[in-house]
C-alpha cells in the first residue's frame, strides 16, 4: 500500500492571509548574535563564518584624526569596484574630522549622515545581517567601538545588457528583453508602468541561494484575492535554493501532476506589463530573465505579444490559424492512423488509392512508422536545441535528410507518413508558448496510441478526458479554459480573436478586480475618427 502513504503527509499549516511575508517570518533573529563593539572580536567571528572564502576582501583602514580602526568587508566581484574605491574609500580616508569631545571617532551614524557619498546605506547590527549583506553584494563598514555596522549598497551591475529576447520573438514590438538581474527587470517594468499603484513586494526565497523575488501587481486593478493567494503560496515555500523561476512555478501551481502548464512566463517586459495592466500578478525572480505571470488561462499560451501590435484583423486571423494548427499538432498523426487503418471508408476514393499506392511494399505497419518518425523528430528537435549553434544546424540538415528523402528512398517509411510528421512538426512550432507546446507534444503520443487501438472512437475518448481535465483546471482561482468554458462573451473580445484596441473597453473580468470600477479601461468605442466629410 505504498502509494497511499503519501496521503499521510501532513499539510503545512495554513497561513493567515494577513501574515507577514516570508522574509520577516524567518527565525533568523533568534539565533543571530549581535555584533560586539570590539572590531577584533567581530573580525574573528566573521572570519570564522567566511572561512575559505577567498573572494572576500577585508580592507582595514584608520579613519579620522584619531585613527579609529575600521574594516571594510565586501565580496570581490559582486560589488562595484569603482564605487568601493572612489566613493567609499575616498570619503573614508579623507575624513579629517576630530571629535571635539575627544572621545574618539566612534559614531557610525556620523559617517552615514555626514561623510559617506553614497545613497543606499542602512545601519545593521547582527552578524547574520552582515553576512547576508556582504553576500548580496553590499559593503559592510565596521568600526572599532561601535556595535553597529553600515551596509553600503554597491551592487555591481554585472550581467548582460538589455538585449532582444531569444524566446517570444516578434516582428513588430519592443526589442528589449529581461536580463538575469532582478533590478534591471523591475526597472524595465517600472519604465512602462509609471504609476505608484504598481507594487513590487520583495520576498527572499531559498535558504542557501537567498534569491530575491519580487511580486509585482497593480493595486486596484489586480484581484486582491489573487494577490493574497500568490503571497500566501510563495510565503509557504521553504526550499534551500531557487535558481530559476521554474522552481517557484512548480511550487505554486494548482495541479502539480497536470500535463498542462498552469503558469505562463515571458522574457518580454511588454508582455508582463500588459499582463499586469489587465490585472495579473507577475513574479520576478533574481537570476533569470523569465518572469512568471499568474493567473494564466489556456488562451494565454496561444497568444503572442505581437498580437496586440499587429492590426486586429491580422492578429485575429493569425490566432485562428494558430488554433487550427494546435489541433493539427495534437491530432494529425492520430487522425492519419485512425483514418488509414480503421476508417478507410472515410477517405475520398482517390486519396485512398494514393495512400495505398504510397504504402505498397512498406515493411512496417503505419503505427510503427508514425511512432518512429515522431520519435525521430523529437530527437532531432532536442539535438538541435542543445548543441552549439553551428553544430545544431548540421544536425537539422542531416536529420532532415534522414527523416525525409532517405527514409522514403530506402523504402523504410511511406512518403505520406513523412508529410504527416513534417506537418505535425510545423504545427507544433505554431504554438507560441514553448511549455504549452511540450504538453501538446506529449499528448500527441497518447492520441497516437489511442487512435491505433480504437480509431476515431479512441481519439474521441482521449479528447473527452483531456477536455474534462482542461475545464477542471484552475489557475489561482481562475478557470483555466475560460473564457471558452465557462463561456464569457465579454472576455471573448481578446481570445480566439482580438478586437481593435478601441473596442476593448473593459479589462478581462476573470483576471481583473471585479469589486470596484477599475474594470473600465477606457471609454467604450473611443475612436478618434476623421471628421465627417458630409457634415
Amino acid at each position, binding site marked *: 500500500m505504498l*502509494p*497511499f502513504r503519501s496521503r*499521510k503527509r501532513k499539510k503545512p499549516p495554513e497561513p493567515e492571509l494577513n501574515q507577514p511575508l516570508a522574509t520577516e517570518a524567518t527565525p533568523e533573529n533568534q539565533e543571530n548574535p549581535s555584533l560586539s563593539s570590539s572590531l577584533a572580536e567581530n573580525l574573528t567571528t566573521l572570519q570564522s563564518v567566511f572561512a575559505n572564502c577567498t573572494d572576500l576582501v577585508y580592507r582595514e583602514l584608520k579613519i579620522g584624526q584619531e585613527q579609529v580602526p575600521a574594516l571594510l568587508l565586501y565580496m570581490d566581484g559582486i560589488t562595484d569596484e569603482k564605487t568601493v574605491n572612489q566613493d567609499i574609500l575616498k570619503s573614508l580616508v579623507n575624513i579629517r574630522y576630530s571629535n571635539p569631545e575627544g572621545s574618539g571617532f566612534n559614531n557610525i551614524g556620523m559617517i552615514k549622515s555626514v561623510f559617506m557619498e553614497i545613497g543606499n546605506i542602512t545601519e545593521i547590527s547582527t552578524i547574520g545581517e552582515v553576512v547576508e549583506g556582504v553576500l548580496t553584494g553590499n559593503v559592510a563598514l565596521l568600526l572599532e567601538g561601535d556595535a553597529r555596522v553600515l551596509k553600503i549598497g554597491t551592487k555591481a551591475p554585472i550581467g548582460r545588457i538589455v538585449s532582444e529576447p531569444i524566446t517570444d520573438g516578434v516582428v513588430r514590438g519592443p526589442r528589449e528583453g529581461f536580463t538575469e538581474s532582478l533590478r534591471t527587470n523591475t526597472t524595465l517594468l517600472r519604465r512602462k508602468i509609471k504609476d505608484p499603484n504598481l507594487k513590487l513586494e520583495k520576498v527572499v526565497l531559498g535558504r542557501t541561494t537567498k534569491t530575491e523575488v519580487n511580486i509585482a501587481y497593480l493595486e486596484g486593478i489586480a484581484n486582491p484575492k489573487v494577490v493574497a493567494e500568490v503571497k500566501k503560496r510563495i510565503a509557504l515555500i521553504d526550499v534551500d535554493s531557487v535558481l530559476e523561476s521554474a522552481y517557484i512555478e512548480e511550487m505554486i501551481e494548482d495541479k502539480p501532476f497536470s500535463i498542462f502548464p498552469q503558469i505562463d512566463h515571458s522574457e518580454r517586459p511588454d508582455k508582463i506589463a500588459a499582463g499586469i495592466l489587465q490585472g495579473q500578478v507577475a513574479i520576478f525572480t533574481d537570476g533569470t530573465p523569465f518572469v512568471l505571470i499568474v493567473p494564466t488561462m489556456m488562451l494565454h499560451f496561444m497568444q503572442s505579444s505581437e498580437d496586440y501590435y499587429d492590426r486586429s484583423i491580422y492578429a485575429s486571423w493569425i490566432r485562428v490559424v494558430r488554433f487550427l494548427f494546435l489541433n493539427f499538432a495534437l491530432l494529425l498523426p492520430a487522425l492519419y492512423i485512425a483514418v*488509414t487503418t480503421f476508417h*478507410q471508408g472515410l477517405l475520398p476514393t482517390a486519396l*485512398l488509392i494514393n495512400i495505398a*499506392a504510397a504504402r*505498397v511494399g512498406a515493411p512496417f505497419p503505419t503505427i510503427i512508422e508514425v511512432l518512429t518518425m515522431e520519435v525521430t523528430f523529437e530527437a532531432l528537435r532536442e539535438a538541435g536545441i542543445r548543441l552549439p549553434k553551428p553544430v545544431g544546424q548540421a544536425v537539422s540538415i542531416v536529420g532532415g535528410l534522414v527523416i525525409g528523402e532517405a527514409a522514403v528512398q530506402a523504402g523504410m517509411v511511406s512518403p505520406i507518413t513523412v508529410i504527416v510528421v513534417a506537418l505535425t512538426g510545423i504545427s507544433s512550432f505554431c504554438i507560441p508558448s514553448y511549455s504549452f507546446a511540450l504538453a501538446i507534444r506529449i499528448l500527441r503520443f497518447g492520441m497516437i496510441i489511442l487512435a491505433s487501438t480504437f480509431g476515431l472512437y479512441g481519439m474521441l475518448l482521449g479528447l473527452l478526458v483531456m477536455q474534462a481535465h482542461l475545464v477542471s483546471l484552475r489557475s489561482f482561482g481562475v478557470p483555466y479554459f475560460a473564457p471558452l468554458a465557462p463561456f464569457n462573451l465579454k472576455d471573448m473580445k481578446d481570445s480566439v480573436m482580438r478586437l481593435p484596441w478601441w473596442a476593448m473597453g473593459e479589462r478581462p473580468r476573470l483576471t481583473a478586480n471585479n469589486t470596484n470600477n477599475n474594470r473600465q479601461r477606457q471609454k467604450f468605442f473611443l475612436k478618434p475618427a476623421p471628421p465627417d466629410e458630409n457634415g
Partner: protein
Amino acid sequence: MKMDKGCLTMRKLAFIVVCISLLLTGCWDYQEVDRLAPVMAIGIDSIPGSKIILLTVQIASPEGKGGSKRTGQQGGGGEAYTVMNSEGKSLSEAIHNLSTQSTRRISLSHCKIIVLGENFAEAGIGQILDELKRDRNFRRTDWLLTTDKTAKEILEKDIELEQVPARGLDLILQNFTTLGRVLPMNLSDFSARLNEESKVSFSPLVQLEDIDKQVTSQLEKAAGRSLESAGRPKTLTISKTAVYKNLRMVGVLNEDDTRLHRWLIDSPKGSSIKFTYTPQSPTEEVQGEVMLNIIDGKTSITPQISENGITMNIAVTVKASLSETGVTGVDVLDPKVVAQLELQAAEAVKLQLEHTINTAQKEIKVDYVDFAESLHNYYPVEWKQIKDNWDDTFPTVEYRISCDVEIRNTGIITDSTQQNESEE
C-alpha cells in the same frame, strides 16, 4: 470538494493502468490500407431459374496507379483495376466467397456503383436490396444501374480517360444529377420509390455500344467506300432507363422517353426542346429546325378527382435559351416571332410528353410517372379506395398538359448572318 493530493494520484494511477491494459489488448479493427482491396463497383447477375448469384467486383489496385512513385520498389505498371468473380446463394455469401481468391481484405466502403444484370433484374431484386441497405459498408448514395446485358460485361469494360471504369461511371452519373437527360438513381431514392404507393422505381440503363462501328458504317455508306477505322472498343453509354415494378424490372424506356420522364418527375432543367418552326404568316417561307436549351424549369402534377374520374393536370414551365435556329430568317429580334417560337415549342413539348405518358399507360402499363404519389398526396382519403386496383385504373387516367415556354435569351448572337441555303 478539496481533494487530498495523494488519493488523487492513486486514482489517476488506477485510471492509467486500466487504460493501458485496455489499449494493449486492442487493435481488433486495425487494417493496413495497402492490405485492402477497395471494391469500386459490384455487378450482380443470375441465371434464369436458379437462385445462384454471380458477383463481379471491380477492385482498384494501387500498384497500377500510373506506376508506383517510390523508386527502387516494384515499379508500377499493371492495370489500374482488376475484376474478380464469385458466386453464392446471396450477395453476402458471394462476397465472402471472394476471400478465397483475394490476398487482400475485400473492402466495400468505397463501392459507388451497383450494376444489376438484365436476367437478375427481371428475376427480382428484393433480397439484394435488403442486403445493400443492411450492410454498413454500402451507402445509400451508391448509384444503382441496370444493364441490358450482364453486369460482368459492363464491369470488364474500360472507360476512356478514366483509369478505373467505376470512377468513370460515377462521374457520368454525377454529371447527370445537375444536367442531363437520364435521372440518376441512388440506392436511397430507388428504395424510397419502391416503397411509395405505386411500388415503381427505375434506374438508368447502362449499355455497351459500338459507337465507333456505328459512325464508321454510316460514313462508309455516305462515302460509298470502306473507311479505315482504328477500331476502338465498345463504349459504355447511359441513355435509357429501366423501370422496376414490385422489385422486378418490367421495361425499358427509350432515349426520348427517358428524357421526358425526367422532365415529368424531376425537372426539365438541362434538357432541350427540338421542333420544326413553321412561320405564322404564309408570306414567310423559312422553316427551320429550332433547338432550345432549357435553363430552368419546373413540372408539377396536380390530380383532380371529379365525377368523370381522375384527371391529372400537368403544368410545365420552362425557361430556355435559343441554341440554334437551323436557318436564317427567323427574326429573333421580333417579339412576335419569339412568341411564336415559344408557342410552338410548348406544343412540341406537349406532344412529346403525351407520347411518354402514353408509353407508360399503354405499353409498359406501369405508373412510373408519379401519378399515384400525387394522388396520394392530394387526395389521401379517396386514394384508399383507388389504391387497390390502381394498376387497372392507371391506363385510363386522363391527363391535361399545359406548357409554358419562355425564351430568355438567344445565345450570344441575335440573328444569323449565314446565307440561306436555298438562296445559293
